C-alpha cells in the first residue's frame, strides 16, 4: 500500500518549481503525494495530514522567511495529536548563511530532517524510506541510485 505524504510550500512563498519536481519524484518512487501547492498555511498542512492519514509532512520554503513561517508548527501538530515525520527543505535562511547553523535551528524547532537547496530529490526519498522503515521494494516503482 502506498504511503501518503503531504507536500507544500509554507507561508506566502510562491516558489512552485521545486515542489513540482519533488511531487513527480515522490510519485515515481511509489508514494501517494498530496501536493498543497504554494502559500500553504500551517493549518492547511495539519488539516491535510489528518484528512489523509499522512505519514510524513514535507515543507518547502525558498524565499527566506522559513523560520518565521514554521514557528509553532510542531506545537500545532502536537496539539492536534499528530505524530508524523516532518521534513523541511529549500533556501531556509535569508542571505548567505552557513547551512549547518540553519540545519541546527530547524532541528531544534522539531523537524526530523532539514535539506538544503542542493538536495537531490532521490536522496530525500532514500531518507524518507529509511525513516518510514520501508524496504526498497515496498514502493510501486522503486529506484534508489547508490
Amino acid at each position, binding site marked *: 500500500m502506498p504511503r501518503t505524504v503531504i507536500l507544500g510550500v509554507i507561508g506566502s512563498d*510562491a516558489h512552485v518549481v521545486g515542489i513540482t519536481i519533488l511531487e513527480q519524484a515522490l510519485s515515481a518512487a511509489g508514494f501517494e503525494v498530496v501536493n498543497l501547492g*504554494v*502559500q500553504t498555511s500551517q493549518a492547511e498542512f495539519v488539516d491535510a495530514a489528518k484528512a489523509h492519514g499522512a505519514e510524513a509532512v514535507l515543507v518547502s520554503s525558498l524565499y*527566506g522567511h522559513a523560520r518565521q513561517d514554521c514557528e509553532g508548527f510542531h506545537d500545532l501538530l502536537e496539539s492536534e495529536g499528530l505524530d508524523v515525520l516532518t521534513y523541511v527543505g529549500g533556501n531556509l535562511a535569508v542571505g*548567505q548563511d552557513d547551512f549547518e547553523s540553519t540545519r541546527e535551528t530547524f532541528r531544534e524547532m522539531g523537524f526530523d530532517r532539514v535539506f538544503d537547496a542542493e538536495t537531490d530529490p*532521490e536522496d530525500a526519498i532514500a531518507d524518507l524510506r529509511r525513516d518510514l522503515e520501508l524496504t526498497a521494494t515496498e514502493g510501486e516503482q522503486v*529506484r534508489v541510485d547508490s
Partner: protein
Amino acid sequence: MLTDTRLAADELQHIANDLRDNWHTGRQVDFEEAIAFHESLPASKQFAPVLESADQPLLQPRAGVPLLEDQIDLLRYLQDEGGADLLPTTIDSYTRDNEYEKAEEGLAASRNGDADELNGFPAVNHGVEDCRRLVRALDAPIEVRHGTPDARLLAMVTLAGGFQSFEGGPISYNIPYTKRHDLETTIEHWQFVDRLCGAYTERGVTINREPFGPLTGTLVPPCIAIAVMLVEGQLAATQGVRSLTLGYGQVGNVVQDVAALRALRELGEEFLPDSVTVTTVFHEWMGGFPPDEARANGVISLGGATAAVAKPDKVITKSPQEFQGVPTKEANASGLRTTRQLIDMMIEQDIDLNGIDEEQRLIERATRALMDAIYEAGDGDVAQGVVRAFDSGAMDVPFAPSDAAAGAVLPARDDDGRVRIFEFADLALPDDIKETHKARLGERARTEGRDQSFRMVADDVDAISDGKLIGRPTGKRGGASDAD
C-alpha cells in the same frame, strides 16, 4: 464589469482615500507636494529620460534590505562599486502580501537583532519621507521592484516618495507570485496603479512602468512572455502610462533570446499607442542557478554576451550567489561588473547571427495568435479577454502557482536548446506552430533515444544549475536519468 477603460478621476480619488487608512503612512501622501518633490530632482535621477536616452544597455541589479540606512549603503555600493546605472529597491514579502503589521514586526526585529528578518525593504512601513531620503542619498534613478498583486498603497507611498519607476503588472505579478488572487481583481488594482502613474505623467513627472517579463523564470516560451507584456502594456497605456519597459527573461539560447528581444520590441511598438515610449529590459537567467559561483559567473556572462548582441535598453543582472540566497553586496556588484565587461567587450563588435529572423517570425506568429485569442475571448476588450483566456487555458504560463492559470502548459528544450512547448493543453496556438514545436522536440527525443515525458521537462529545469543548457539523460543521478 471589468473593461480596459480609463479609471475616472473621482474613482481614483475615492480609492486612494480608502487606501490611506490601510496603514498610517498612507496619510503622508499628498499628490501636489509629491509633484513638487519630483520636480526638485535633478535630470540624473529621472528614470524615464535616463533610460530612454541611453545609447548602451543600462545595468540594474536587484537589492533590498529592511533598514533605510542599510538600503542607502547597499545601493551606494552597487552604484559606486558595481557601476549600476539604475538602482532598485526590492520590497519584502510581507509587504507584497499587504501584511504591513507583520512587516512592521520584521522591521522592528531587524532594528534590534543583527540578522535581517525581512527579505526586502518595507517601503510602506518606512513611509514617504524615508523613501525620499533614499532617493536623495543616491545619484541614479531608483525603481520599486516587488511582486505585489495589490500594489496600490505601495505605489501611492513610493511614488510620493520620489521613485520614478514601478515594476509589475496584473498578470506578471499575479500568476507567478501568488496562489489565490483572481485575475479580475488584480487587473482592477493595477488599473489604479497605472492611472496613478498616468496622473503623475500628465503633470510632467513621467513614471516608468515595467511589466515583469520573466514570469515564473522557468523555461517560459517567448510567445507567452511577450503576449503578457503586450496585454499589460495596453492596460497601462489606457490609464495614461507613457513610458513602458517591456521585459523578457533569458532562456539561454542566444539565437532565441536575441530573436525574442527583437520580437518584443517590434510587437511592443506595433501594439502600443504611438504616445507610449517603448523600451525593453533583458533579465539574466531567472531560473535555478548553479550552486557554484564560478559556474554562476558563466551563466551571468552568457547573459551579458546576449545583451551585447540584442542591445536591450536595460539589463537586470544576477549575482554569482543567486543559488544560495540574497547575495552580499560584493557579490551583487560583481555580477554587475562581470556583465559590464562582457557588454563593453562585445557591444562594438559586429555580431550577426544566422537564424534570428526565422526564430523571430516564429515567435511573432505565435504571439499574435495568443493576442488574437485574447481579443476574441474579450470581444475586443483586452482586460476581459485576458481574464477569460486564462480561465479557458487559451492563455497559460508554465509552472504557474496561481489558481488563476491552468499551469498546464509544459516547456522543454529542443536539440538546439531553444524552449519549445511539449504540452500545449488548451493554449491557443494554431496547428502549424504546434507542429513546428513538436517536430523540434521530436528531434531531441530521437537524439536522446527516449520518449518526451515530464522527466525531460524536469531535466531541463535542472540543466543550467547542473552546468548544461539541455537536460540530456546522463545516467549519473536519478533526477537526470530516463530509467523510469
